[in-house]
């Protein structure tokens, strides 16, 4: 039971001068029940990958296996794949349309043709996970602040209870509070439903903080993949990939270069603190 890509390539504009390889022979298996962070520059193929996983986009070649089954075996059944692999787009608040928050969250479950009771249950559950207060459910989504709208939109995807939840830049453009709210909602979802989460982001800092595994894409290819520790144990490679390293990582990279410290696989302030305290630095 997993989500797996086998030799997947996506080519846009085949046979035209605008031919562009968005993904080039990708092989990945996303670990179940974990959060995998997917990072890369704009144009690295992150968003293409997201749309591949739930069948909004078809691979030019290669296969995508969902729980062992090729998702494109029966193209007519692709909407079922979309219920299993939920996708929240970038700036998902721009897709809200219902009169009330509750109705908007219910849109997905309704399309799944669930019973009224089940829909109501899922709406309250998703709203709770995303930290949307009960009394907001009857309000218009258009009255809410940007951060709240974002949470409603993401709750709308969570209410479908997908086994796999793919989020494209869920925290983009939010202030620190809004960001924490959203990311905590995602962790709640993972813990409560035992779901698998794919978190697409530009921010190495967020990915390092919230993920178990990391996949680094570069120019449509897998540049690196592994646990967060594995990825960060090879800092020099990451530094070369010209991704934005967390500031704390850059600090320890510099300290190691100066021969002051042995490890540079540091990606949280807490761990950095611990290392330095072990060295007897600071007032412990």
């Amino acid at each position, binding site marked *: 039971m997993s989500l797996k890509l086998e030799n997947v390539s996506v080519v846009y504009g085949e046979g035209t001068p605008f031919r562009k390889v968005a993904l080039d022979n990708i092989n990945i298996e996303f670990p179940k029940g974990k959060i995998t962070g997917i990072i890369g520059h704009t144009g690295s193929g992150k968003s293409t990958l997201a749309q591949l996983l739930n069948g909004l986009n078809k691979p030019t070649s290669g296969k995508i296996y969902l729980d062992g089954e090729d998702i494109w075996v029966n193209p007519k059944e692709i909407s079922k794949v979309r219920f299993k692999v939920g996708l929240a787009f970038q700036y998902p608040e721009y897709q809200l349309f219902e009169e009330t928050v509750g109705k908007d969250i219910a849109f997905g479950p309704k399309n*799944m043709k669930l019973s009224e009771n089940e829909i109501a249950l899922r709406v309250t559950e998703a709203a709770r996970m995303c930290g949307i207060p009960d009394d907001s459910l009857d309000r218009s989504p258009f009255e809410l602040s940007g951060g709240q709208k974002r949470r409603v939109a993401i709750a709308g995807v969570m209410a479908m209870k997908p086994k796999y939840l793919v989020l494209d830049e869920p925290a983009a453009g939010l202030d620190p509070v809004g960001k924490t709210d959203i990311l905590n909602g995602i962790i709640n979802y993972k813990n409560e439903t035992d779901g698998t989460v794919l978190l697409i982001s530009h921010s190495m800092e967020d990915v390092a903080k919230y993920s178990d595994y990391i996949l680094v894409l570069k120019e449509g290819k897998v540049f690196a993949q592994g646990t967060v520790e594995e990825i960060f144990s090879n800092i020099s490679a990451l530094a070369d990939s010209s991704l934005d390293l967390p500031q704390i990582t850059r600090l320890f990279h510099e300290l190691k270069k100066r021969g002051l410290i042995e490890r540079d696989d540091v990606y949280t302030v807490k761990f950095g603190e611990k290392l330095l305290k072990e060295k007897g630095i600071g007032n412990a």
Partner: protein
Amino acid sequence: MLKDITLGQFFPGRSLLHRTDARIKIILLAVFLVFVLCAKSAAAFTFVAVCTAVLVIISAIPLKTIIKSLKPLMFVLIFTAVINLFFANGEDILLQWKFIKIYREGIENAIKMVVRLTCLVTGTSVLLTYTTSPLDLTDGIERLLTPLKHIGVPVHDFAMMMSIALRFIPTLIEETDKIISAQKARGADFESGNLFSRAKALIPILVPLFVSAYRRAFELAEAMECRCYRSGVGKTRMKVIKTRPADYIFLGISVVCCVGIFFLNQVVIPF
């Protein structure tokens, strides 16, 4: 996909058509449209097609782009062709199979309609939208309509509105594409059901699109105000438009072409 729609998009370039005064191009387009719609005989249609081809060539817009822009029209083209093919009556039966009768006139009409539509769309894009930057276009319209200012028509505002609409077409198309994908990801079904449920299925697309267009309009207005926009009062232009002799020659040639159509309509060439 919606992304293939290139309508209203401007392709910067330095071709003769790009450099022609926008006013001349607008007049030309009007003349061209009359001339396409008036064509009747096979000779006239051949001439229309040749003229369109010439326009495409001098615009230096790649043929691929033109073909791409016709793609969304494909359905309409095929539909008209089929209607004309099967439902036209005439004298010359070419093919008969059960109740289907195909007349020579039917084929002729089908070809004419396809040529007419293709030329209309290609001509409009090549003459105006592809080769005229929206600002030039607005300016052209504004100058052509200047006489109306005296009777109180807000010509400048109208022209500005048009140019902004053109500027936002690609943005809104992209946005629509995104909203459709997002709602599909939530299991929205746009393909099945009767007409009523299909129309209802559009709500999740139209509401967000409208909200977003409104938000964009509001933000753009603020940004324009910030850049001292005051509806054409005391406005100057970076590029001073001068109508060059070449423009008049161009206009002359096209008027001659147009007149030619009326004569060609009289010429009967066996098909």
